[in-house]
């Protein structure tokens, strides 16, 4: 497996205001078949999708529709059975390093405190973590973790740990952020706050964001476009442009139009027997 050389932004410590630093992502004809003994599972079938630079795309679908598989393929962590992924015009082969990833569980390192868990991103890339310390602190403060930088992961709540994971995924200013059900393990209130914080971070930096979720309203609240997937084999069933103003404050997400978007997705799932009454 070939991996690209790690990349870090040149200057450290003084983040310039960056708007529109996202890269385009081109997914064409991706299919994934898992073979085990004589059992063949078609996880994904012909996924085609163009993501614009800086776009926020949410993928919503039931368990088993292959959305996590799709995310791993985009990251170059999994080789697709067929099809190609291009990031910023370059074909992905082997782990793509110019991105940040957040998983459902925070996957922090137990032996590092919160600040060092953020800086491990730099450390693993062979950069100088000390140069990023101030920036890590600024980002941690932005997600309400200013006083927790010296705590160990186990001392923090699930939501705080996940915030740390998000900061870790952004510290090196990647032009692409991949999130695999990042709020899946959190309670509803924490989810809502994280959603608001994530939108803020995205509005500031403008990195292309690929957000996988089970939550219909979460997808509508965050995304420019919602990709609706149905299972077995996973395929794109619908693509909804979400034309709602940002930031998506309370009056936006309680609006009639917001509810209509959610309805549309729900009905799409009902037609495919994903949701049954």
């Amino acid at each position, binding site marked *: 497996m070939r*991996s*690209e*050389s*790690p*990349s870090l932004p040149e200057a450290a410590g003084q983040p310039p205001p960056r708007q529109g630093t996202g890269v385009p992502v081109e997914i064409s004809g991706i299919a994934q078949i898992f073979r085990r003994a004589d059992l063949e599972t078609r996880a994904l079938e012909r996924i085609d999708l163009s993501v614009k630079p800086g776009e926020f795309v949410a993928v919503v679908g039931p368990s088993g529709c292959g959305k996590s598989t799709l995310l*791993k393929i985009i*990251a170059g*962590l999994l080789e697709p059975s067929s099809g190609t992924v291009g990031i910023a015009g370059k074909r992905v082969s082997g*782990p*793509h*390093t110019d*991105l*940040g*990833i957040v*998983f459902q*569980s925070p*996957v922090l*390192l*137990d*032996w590092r405190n919160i600040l060092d868990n953020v800086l*491990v*991103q730099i*450390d*693993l*890339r*062979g950069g100088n973590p000390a140069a990023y310390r101030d920036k890590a602190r600024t980002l941690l403060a932005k997600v309400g973790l200013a006083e927790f930088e010296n705590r*160990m992961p*186990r001392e923090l709540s699930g939501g705080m740990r996940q915030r740390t994971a998000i900061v870790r995924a952004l510290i090196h200013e990647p032009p692409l952020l991949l999130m695999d059900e990042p709020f899946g393990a959190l309670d509803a209130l924490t989810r809502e706050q994280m959603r608001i914080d994530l939108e803020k971070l995205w509005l500031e930096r403008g990195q292309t964001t690929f957000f996988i979720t089970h939550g219909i309203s979460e997808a509508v609240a965050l995304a420019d476009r919602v990709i609706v997937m149905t299972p077995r084999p996973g395929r794109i069933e619908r693509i909804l442009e979400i034309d709602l103003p940002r930031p998506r404050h309370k009056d936006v997400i309680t609006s009639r139009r917001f509810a209509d978007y959610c309805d549309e997705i729900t009905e799409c799932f009902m037609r495919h027997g994903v949701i049954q009454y």
Partner: protein
Amino acid sequence: MIIAFIVLFLLWEFAVKLFGIKEYLLPPPSKIWSEFLKRQNTVMASAWTTMTEIIGGYLLAVAVSIPLAMAIAYSRFVENSIYPIIVFLQIIPKIAIAPLFIIWFGFGLFPKLLIVFLLCFFPIVVSSVAGFKSVDPDVMDFARSTGASPARMFFKIRLPQALPEIFTGLKIGAALSATAAVVAEFVASDRGLGYLLQQYNGQLETPMVFAIIVLLSLIGLAIYYLVEFVERLVIPWHVSQRPTEMTGL
């Protein structure tokens, strides 16, 4: 804890006196202590011999087990070829091989080191292999997405992640090491605490037998706690999150 021991020793002392139990059956603690003081030079010299065997054999086991465990964890070939042999060898009662070592290597220090090594080796290998393999796949995905070199990935992620389980093996090994040395000396020896124990036992010098048993226990305990102390220094993040366990002392 200490009070409990004092009470136990006092009860023992008085029970022996009260019921008139013969000294060669169960000597009172005071007698054990006075006999020990009389011969402490002989005993301490033997203790030194035994400690050398324990520590030498143990360190040898650590030095061999951990690199071997890494090879098993990271190489499919080594795992498929060598690991089954190791698992098979583990089933052999190691103590039963001890007499063979005397035939092969004579009476000196070496066969004793080898027996201590053998007994400590397996738990350390097995735990370390488990430790090196127990990395969360998501953590590895994260690490791969940073493009980290294999060396960096090992030192920054795999090794620290494996340390708690490695230490579990190291502690089991430490607890076995004293037993291993004594057994080795039982089989054939002209020095050491195991040898002395047999001598005194043969002469029905029960107070000395007790003294040596106590001394051996203390040595075993000291080695165990030494390893645990090192563990506290190396992986404080793990030790402090572990639920309170049998660390009573």
